[in-house]
C-alpha cells in the first residue's frame, strides 16, 4: 500500500497531569499546523494539556488511531502521557508515523528513541520546516530519515553505535552554547539511531503564518481577559508571540534546549496578527499578552511594536516578560512604552539571594532586582513576579533574603501568592538539572521530573517547605475566596466615588444598598468601608506574615511548630490583630453587607455572559 496522497495528520498536546487555570492554546503546535496548512497539509489539533483523565482513554475517545501521522509536543511533565498515547496508536495502527517534538523531546531525543519503540522520530528544536518535509516525504523512508533536525531509530545494523561524540552535544540542543548547526552529520549518536544534522533556526519569523489553528479540547478555553485598572474596564485579551529564543542562559530555563539565537517579528506583522484574530474570532481584543521568552531583548524593536499597536488602535494595552538588567539598561524607553499602552511587565527576579542567583545563572546581583522594581514602581508600571522561593540547596539564610526582599519591595501587597510556594523545577536539558545530578551523585530518569519539593538538602528547609505547603492547602483557598469577595465589594463601592472622594450622581437613594453614613447608602457605613479596605490589605499580607513567622521559628529550631503545630504560627493580622479565621469570616460578611453580587445579564468583553 503506498503512502496516502493527502495524509491525515494530528497534533497533540498531551496532559501534564494537572489542571492549569491559565490554559491557552499550545502555540508551538499552532504555528506548525498553520505552516503545514499554508503548504497544503491541513491537520487536526488536540489539546489535553490540563486533563487529568487517563491518556490512553483520551486517545481512544478522540480516535487518535485515525491518523497517518501523529505529532506530540512534549514537555518533561507530559512525556509519559505522550508515550502511552503513542503506544496505544501503534498497537492499532502500526504504520502510523509517531513524531515527538518540543523542548523535552529535543533535550533527550536519543533516550526517547532508545527507550520507547512506539516513537518513530523526534523533531528537534523548531518544527515547522522539518514537519513539512516529513509529511511531504511519507512513503520514502530513505528520504525521511535524512531530514535535517530529526532523529530516527535506524534500521537493524545501521547507524552509529554511539561510541564516538554525542551529536547532541554539538547541535545546541543542550545548554546555552552557540546555535550554529554544528552537528556532526548523519549517523552520529547512540546505538541504532540516526541523528541528522541540526536544522537552521527559522531566520525570518514573518515567513511563518499566524498561529491560526483550532484545537479539540475536552475542557475548552477560558476567555482570556485583562482588567485594565487605568481604563477601569475588563478587556478581551490575546496572546501573541513576537519573537523566539533568548540570548541569555539562565540555568533553569527550558528555552535553552531550543536555542539562544534571538529572532523577532516586524512590528507591522504583530499588528496584523491582532487584527487577523479580531476578525477571525469576532472579538475586539484590546490587550495583548506577549508570550515571548524575552520580549525586551531589543528595546528599539519593543518600542516599534508598541508604537505600531498604539497607532493602529490607541485603546490596545499590552504586557510582556523580560529580565531585570534589561529594564535598567533601557530605562529611557519605558515611559514611552507606557504611553503606548504598557500595563505590566513580568519580571524574572527569581531570587533575592546572591548564591541562588549564581546557581540560576541570572548574572545579576540582588540589588539589581530591587533597582528594577523601584524603577518600575516609580514609573507606575505594574510588575508580575517570577520567583523561585526554594531550590534544593536553599538555606534558611536564602529564604530570609527572599522574604526581606519581598517585604522591602512591596510584594506583601501582591496577589496571587503563588510565588511563596514555588520550588525550582529541574527540567531535562537545563544546566541546573545536570548541576544537581552531579551534586547528588545520581542520574535522574529522563522520563521523569523530580519532585521539586522532595529534594531539599537541609532538613530545616524541608520542614519549612512542608509546613508552608500545609498552610497553602488549608488556608490559601479560603484567603483567595475572601479576597475576591472583598475586592469585588470594594470595586463596586469605589465606582460610587469621584477622584476627589465626593459621591458621583448625588446622594444614594432611600433603600439602596449603602444608605446610612453621609455619602453612603443604607446598611453600610463609612466605618465598614474603612474596615473592609484594611481587612483586604491584611488578607493580602497574611500568607507572607505566616511565611515570616515560620522562617523565624525555623531559625530558632521550630519551637512553636513543635509545641502547637501550624496553628501556633498563624498570624493575627489586621488593624485589630484578629485571628486569621476571624479575619476571613469578617471580610466575607462585610463584602456581603456591601452587596458584591454581579448585576444580572452582564455581558463580558468577549460578548458572552
Amino acid at each position: 500500500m503506498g503512502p496516502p496522497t493527502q495524509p491525515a495528520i494530528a497534533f497533540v498536546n498531551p496532559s501534564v497531569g494537572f489542571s492549569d487555570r491559565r490554559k491557552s492554546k499550545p502555540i508551538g503546535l499552532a504555528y506548525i499546523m498553520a505552516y503545514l496548512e499554508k503548504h497544503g497539509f491541513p491537520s487536526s489539533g488536540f489539546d489535553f494539556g490540563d486533563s487529568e483523565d487517563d491518556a490512553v482513554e483520551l486517545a481512544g475517545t478522540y480516535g487518535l488511531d485515525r491518523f497517518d501521522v501523529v505529532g506530540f509536543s512534549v514537555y518533561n511533565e507530559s512525556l509519559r502521557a505522550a508515550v502511552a498515547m503513542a503506544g496505544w496508536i501503534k498497537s492499532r495502527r502500526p504504520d502510523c508515523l509517531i513524531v515527538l517534538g518540543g523542548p523535552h523531546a529535543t533535550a533527550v531525543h536519543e533516550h526517547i528513541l532508545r527507550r520507547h519503540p512506539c516513537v518513530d522520530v523526534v523533531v528537534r528544536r523548531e518544527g515547522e520546516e522539518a514537519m513539512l518535509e516529513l509529511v511531504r516525504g511519507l512513503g520514502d523512508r530513505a528520504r525521511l530519515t535524512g531530514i535535517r533536525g530529526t532523529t530516527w531509530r535506524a534500521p537493524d545494523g545501521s547507524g552509529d553505535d554511539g561510541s564516538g561524540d554525542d551529536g547532541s552535544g554539538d547541535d545546541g540542543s543542550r545548554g546555552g552554547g552557540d546555535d550554529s548547526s554544528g552537528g556532526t552529520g548523519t549517523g552520529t549518536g547512540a546505538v541504532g539511531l540516526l541523528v541528522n544534522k541540526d536544522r537552521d533556526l527559522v531566520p525570518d519569523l514573518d515567513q511563518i503564518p499566524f498561529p491560526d489553528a483550532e484545537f479539540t479540547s475536552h475542557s475548552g478555553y477560558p476567555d482570556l481577559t485583562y482588567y485594565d485598572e487605568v481604563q477601569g474596564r475588563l478587556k478581551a485579551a490575546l496572546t501573541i508571540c513576537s519573537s523566539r529564543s533568548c540570548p541569555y542562559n539562565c540555568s533553569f530555563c527550558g528555552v535553552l534546549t531550543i536555542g539562544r539565537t534571538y529572532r523577532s517579528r516586524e512590528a507591522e506583522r504583530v499588528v496584523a496578527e491582532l487584527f487577523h484574530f479580531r476578525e477571525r474570532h469576532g472579538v475586539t481584543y484590546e490587550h495583548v499578552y506577549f508570550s515571548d521568552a524575552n520580549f525586551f531583548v531589543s528595546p528599539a524593536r519593543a518600542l516599534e511594536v508598541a508604537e505600531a499597536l498604539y497607532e493602529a488602535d490607541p485603546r490596545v494595552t499590552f504586557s510582556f516578560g523580560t529580565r531585570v538588567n534589561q529594564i535598567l539598561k533601557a530605562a529611557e524607553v519605558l515611559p514611552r512604552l507606557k504611553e503606548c499602552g504598557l500595563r505590566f511587565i513580568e519580571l524574572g527576579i527569581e531570587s533575592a539571594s546572591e548564591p541562588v542567583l549564581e546557581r540560576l545563572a541570572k548574572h545579576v546581583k540582588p540589588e539589581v532586582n530591587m533597582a528594577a522594581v523601584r524603577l518600575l514602581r516609580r514609573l507606575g508600571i505594574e510588575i508580575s513576579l517570577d520567583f523561585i522561593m526554594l531550590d534544593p540547596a536553599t538555606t534558611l539564610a536564602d529564604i530570609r533574603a527572599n522574604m526581606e526582599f519581598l517585604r522591602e519591595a512591596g510584594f506583601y501587597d501582591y496577589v496571587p501568592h503563588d510565588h511563596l510556594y514555588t520550588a525550582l523545577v529541574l527540567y531535562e536539558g537545563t544546566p541546573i538539572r545536570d548541576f544537581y545530578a552531579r551534586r547528588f551523585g545520581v542520574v535522574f530518569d529522563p522520563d521523569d521530573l523530580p519532585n521539586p519539593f522532595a529534594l531539599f538538602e537541609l532538613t530545616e528547609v524541608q520542614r519549612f517547605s512542608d509546613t508552608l505547603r500545609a498552610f497553602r492547602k488549608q488556608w490559601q483557598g479560603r484567603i483567595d475566596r475572601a479576597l475576591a469577595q472583598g475586592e469585588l465589594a470594594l470595586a463596586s463601592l469605589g465606582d460610587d466615588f469621584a477622584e476627589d472622594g465626593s459621591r458621583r450622581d448625588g446622594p444614594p437613594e432611600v433603600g439602596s444598598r449603602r444608605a446610612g453614613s453621609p455619602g453612603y447608602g443604607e446598611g453600610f457605613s463609612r466605618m465598614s468601608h474603612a474596615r473592609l479596605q484594611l481587612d483586604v490589605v491584611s488578607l493580602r499580607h497574611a500568607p507572607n506574615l505566616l511565611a515570616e513567622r515560620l522562617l523565624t521559628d525555623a531559625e530558632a529550631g521550630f519551637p512553636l511548630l513543635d509545641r502547637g503545630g501550624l496553628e501556633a504560627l498563624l498570624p493575627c493580622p489586621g488593624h485589630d490583630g484578629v485571628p486569621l479565621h476571624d479575619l476571613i469570616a469578617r471580610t466575607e460578611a462585610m463584602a456581603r453587607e456591601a452587596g458584591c453580587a454581579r448585576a444580572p445579564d452582564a455581558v463580558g468583553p468577549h460578548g458572552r455572559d
Partner: protein
Amino acid sequence: MQRITSELPYLDQAGHVYVPLAGPARSCLKLNRHASRIWREALRRPVDLEDLPAPDRDFLLGLTRRGVLHTAPAPEGG
C-alpha cells in the same frame, strides 16, 4: 502642641501604614516608609507642627484638611 488623632482605624503592617478612604476615590492609601514614620510619630504623642520639616508638616496638614486626621490642642503636660 497638637494631639493628632485618626477617627478611622488604620493598619500598620509589613513596614507601612495603610490609611483607609484617604486615597483617590476614597481608596486605601499606602504610605511610603518616610510618611509611615511621620504618621506613627504624630499619633504616638503630642506634636508641635511648627517644629516639623515643612514637607512633613504639609503632609500632616493635608491629611487634616481632608478629614483623615484631626488635631486638637494637647492638654497641659501631655
